[in-house]
């Protein structure tokens, strides 16, 4: 290290540090404001999630009110068919065929339920945004 390098290091070490002059207050105010904003954002998220959940529940409730009888009747019918298929054809192949047939017949109901859930999810996401 040359003499000048040493002098330079000493000059850096001896250079005065600025006085506070309100700097700390500015930083602490900004930190406090930031934390308050984060808290508000947290409350808003909780509110959005609640609204989303309510929208999904309401959607499911409305769906059940409109289609529950049909769904229950169809499901009962499919169960009866499945039961008949299983009881009349005891071999595994026939039972599986009967099950697939029942599944096919019940596909409409499955699609309707899936669509309702998807709609609910979209509503939930929309409220979150």
């Amino acid at each position, binding site marked *: 290290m040359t003499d*000048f*390098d040493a*002098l*330079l*290091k000493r*000059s*850096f070490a001896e*250079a*005065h*540090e*600025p*006085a*506070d002059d309100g*700097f*700390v207050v*500015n*930083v*602490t105010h*900004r*930190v*406090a404001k*930031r*934390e308050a904003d984060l808290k508000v954002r947290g409350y808003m998220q909780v509110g959005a999630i609640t609204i989303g959940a309510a929208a999904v529940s309401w959607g499911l409730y409305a769906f059940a009110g409109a289609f529950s009888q049909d769904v229950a009747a169809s499901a009962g019918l499919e169960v009866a068919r499945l039961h008949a298929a299983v009881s009349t054809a005891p071999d595994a192949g026939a039972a599986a065929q009967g099950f697939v047939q029942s599944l096919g017949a019940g596909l409409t109901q499955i699609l309707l339920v899936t669509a309702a859930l998807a709609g609910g999810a979209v509503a939930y996401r929309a409220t979150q945004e």
Partner: protein
Amino acid sequence: MVSRGFTHLAEATEAALIIAAQAKDQAAFGELVKRRQGWARALLRRMCQSHAEADDLAQEAFIKAWDRLRDLETPAAFPGWFRRIAVTTFLMAKRRQKAVFEEITDASPLASEESTPEAAAGAKLDLEKALARLSDAERLCVTLNHGEGLSHSEIVEITGLPLGTVKSHVLRGTDKLRRLLDPDS
């Protein structure tokens, strides 16, 4: 001032303040800022040409530190960790202003020196004024090397500049400072 776990914040050790601030104790962080603001602002004032800009960047760096304080593994690492945040904040601000740090093109940097009143009077300049005559990149590298005692490889790590560029900036910057601060040499 009374905070969680402290009777007097002023008597708490820096490590204790950092641990409390990591638990989101704003008063402890305020005390930490109070203790470190001089060093942080002096560091950024040496890197920036304007005191107002340096103070804005110091404020931004402290806010970032508050947000990321939980990432700090040991309180003892705070100075180096904060220095990195300050330098990154400075570099980001300069990149927004389209400043170039990688190029070394300044072949006759002190051409304007003769025209300044201090030089004309043969007076020695103080460190801050001399630093203001360097390019942004030279000022950054010289400050980190001579002011903060970082090695070239540490400066590479903290700034992301190539090693050869850092060495050149330190060499050129030191040489310019020698001519400015010690014109007789």
